[in-house]
């Protein structure tokens, strides 16, 4: 999972405006900074997006690399396949998560990407939140680099209100982690500094959530999947910095301008779509075009919540630093049980006046995908919502069959179109 299509090249005439330029600069600066990092002066921590501990690690002077985001940026730049093939030559099977193969292949090839060199890790922080592959991936990195690894065990969220024992468990681990970092860096932990950073974090999260909620408007001034994924970079990678928080102020001002000026994602919003699942980063624009062609706008999506369910109140809180970090880690979208995922989707359907759902299943991601067929069944039969399930991969272009996907999407949206004119029941357009 993850998300942050940092380097997606927008087209001329897009509704994306000032946010896009600012985002491009932030991405470039981040990778430029990384290329110079490493060693005792500027040590590097590798971290996963789900349930991450960015704020704590940065407060000890670490630069943070998110291999998932590096991998997806490679995929957008059409550079994932060579890394994946290299990983397969190393022995990683066809069915291993594309992020893992892209990353381990890249590392073995020396870490050079179109956006700069990715430094080696001095520390591996495995936030085990939402994906078991995280543990396997980080074990492989630990053995390759001999870097120390800290596992932050985040229990799976099975009830809406987190169990107090789970919070206690995570808070205790956070203290242990802090003590380890103190020993490792020789620096004392500064709680006041963490609180200051968390204030910026919170500001960014509130801005991001406000942006996402704009999808409730009809017509929607935002594209809550393709555009939102593009704008995930600051919330996932730069969280805790003033730049990330300021970024969403810029974006939200732009969204307000869009509403005023009628500069919307599409000239006519014909279908309001909820999208579930990780995107095919290798064919991002092509996939988006398959929606646009039919006047389909994503007004809400689940994937932008993989880094945290900020729009549902799982926010960092400077007044309760560790407790709120624990709650945030618990709430990441794929760390939630299917029962909770269904409930969230049900609420989104209503709050965002959704007409149809598109589920994009990822062949090499069981965490997100295992059970999406059941979700489709539930949406069609229990919720009466037309739903399309398609499958490819987030990283491996060999699995993206454009003609087949386009045919299925055309058939789906065409039948929706017919339904709008004939008012047929929802289940009949279950492509």
């Amino acid at each position, binding site marked *: 999972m993850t998300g942050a299509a940092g380097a997606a090249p927008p087209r001329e005439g897009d509704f994306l405006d000032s946010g896009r330029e600012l985002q491009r600069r932030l991405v470039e600066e981040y990778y430029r900074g990384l290329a110079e990092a490493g060693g005792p002066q500027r040590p590097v921590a590798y971290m996963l997006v789900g349930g991450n501990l960015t704020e704590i690690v940065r407060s000890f002077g670490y630069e943070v690399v998110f291999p998932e985001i590096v991998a997806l940026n490679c995929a957008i730049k059409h550079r994932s396949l060579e890394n994946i093939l290299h990983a397969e030559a190393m022995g990683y099977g066809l069915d291993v998560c594309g992020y893992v193969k892209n990353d381990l292949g890249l590392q073995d090839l020396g870490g050079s990407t179109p956006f700069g060199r990715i430094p080696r890790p001095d520390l591996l922080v495995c936030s085990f939140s939402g*994906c078991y592959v995280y543990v396997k991936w980080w074990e*492989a990195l630990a053995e390759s680099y001999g870097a120390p690894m800290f596992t932050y*065990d985040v229990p799976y969220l099975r009830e809406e209100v987190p169990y107090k024992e789970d919070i206690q*468990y995570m808070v205790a*681990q956070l203290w242990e982690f802090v003590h380890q970092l103190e020993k490792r860096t020789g620096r004392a932990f500064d709680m006041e500094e963490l609180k200051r950073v968390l204030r910026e974090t919170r500001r960014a999260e509130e801005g991001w959530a406000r942006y996402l909620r704009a999808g409730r408007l009809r017509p929607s001034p935002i594209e809550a999947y393709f555009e939102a994924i593009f704008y995930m970079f600051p919330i996932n990678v730069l969280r805790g910095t003033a730049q990330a928080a300021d970024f969403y102020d810029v974006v939200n001002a732009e969204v307000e301008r869009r509403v005023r000026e009628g500069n919307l994602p599409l000239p006519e919003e014909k279908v309001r779509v909820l999208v579930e699942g990780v995107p095919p980063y290798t064919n991002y624009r092509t996939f988006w075009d398959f929606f646009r062609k039919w006047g389909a706008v994503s007004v809400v999506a689940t994937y932008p919540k993989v880094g945290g369910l900020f729009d549902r109140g799982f926010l960092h809180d400077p007044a309760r630093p560790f407790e709120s970090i624990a709650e945030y880690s618990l709430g990441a979208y794929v760390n939630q*049980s299917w029962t909770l995922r269904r409930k969230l989707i049900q609420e989104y359907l209503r709050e965002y006046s959704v007409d149809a759902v598109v589920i994009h299943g990822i062949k090499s991601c069981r965490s997100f*995908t*295992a059970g999406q*067929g059941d979700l489709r069944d539930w949406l069609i039969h229990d919720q009466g919502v037309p739903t399309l399930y398609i499958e490819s991969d987030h990283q491996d272009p060999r699995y993206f069959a454009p003609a087949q996907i386009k045919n299925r999407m055309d058939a789906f949206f065409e039948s929706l179109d017919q339904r709008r004119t004939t008012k047929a029941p929802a289940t009949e357009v279950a492509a």
Partner: protein
Amino acid sequence: MAAPLLTIGERTEEEPAAPSLELSNDLAEFRSAAGVAEMVRLAGEVLGDPTFPVARAWKRAGGRSVATFPVYTPQELIHALGMLPVTVQGGGENLEITHADALLGSFLCSISKSTLEMALTGRLDAFEGFVFPYICDVSRNLEGIFARSLPGKMTHMLHLPQNFGSAATLPFLIAEYRRLLAKLERVAGRAYDPEHLRASLATFNRQRRLVGELADLRRERPADLSLVEMYLLTRLGSTLPRELHIELLERALAELTARHRKPRDALRVVVVGPFCEQPTLDLLSLLEESGCAVVGEEFQMLSRWYGDVPSEGDPLENLARAYLEAPVDIGVRATPTTKEAGILARVERTGAQGVLFLTAKFCEPALEDVVLYRRALEKRNIPYLQMEFEERSTTYEQARLQLETFVESQLFD
């Protein structure tokens, strides 16, 4: 437009297939089994029947049973509440998958599909509840699908912690077990009593010791107990009332001690990978026919995750501690050392001459470990062979060829 899916709650007309095996309510068939051969035959029939004849017999006799997905669940808790714990370890080679594919997605292991298929077709009706441990994302997600598919049944996703270095993990795991217990109490209709758990710990300790003896016997005298015999006798303990399994194992061990078959030349191998989905019995036989002596494996880890769990003090804490302190190094828990150290230690401990990676198709935890294991073995020039399997495999020509070539290349080098 796709074919309509099975609507949950509605069962299809043709399902389930008539149960093939009816056992007596008191499971007398096992008590009267004349010897190892008879036990093994019965085990083969019982374990090959995806309608769970033992659980059905138990239910007819008025009992309640709870199914657990592999690899590890503290079944002692289920037992302590007077219920029958049963490991549901796939549907086997004969189960046809017609509904689960559509609900689960394509690129998933067979065991997840067969487990769901059995649920959707009424084959798991004998169970009152289902526990899915967090061994991987597939098992974890299955819980949520079961919760929707079988709304009247208890379901639980058990979070098995992965931070083995924290002082807070033990209290967390105890709390996690208490949550499971609370659900089990509702199913059992009775309250948890530490005394009962102490008794269950003793029963499971006894069972594990006997399973250990069986494994020792096989390691020392592989000719006297075939791999399939050992496998079936051990796996029987995941479905029979544990007291009955203990009786059988005691009798089996007494008989086996007197067995003396002629040893044959074979390559001593450790089998790594099938900790969850299980290979068919035919594939297990093929390993031996091809000249492998399996001296270490991961087939039924639940029955030997740890040694004796002490019953003094708080039995729940002891159970949690036993899980956390066990140095088990398999694909579904964070490695206690490194993968390299783990595999080399296993080879050394068992005196194996090679490693056979038998990975279930689409089983990501196993597939990822293999790369690190292979790297470690290559550094030491320890031979290995990697093969994929599915619980529904039916043809073995390719596997036979690979195995025979591997064995020959090592034995007659």
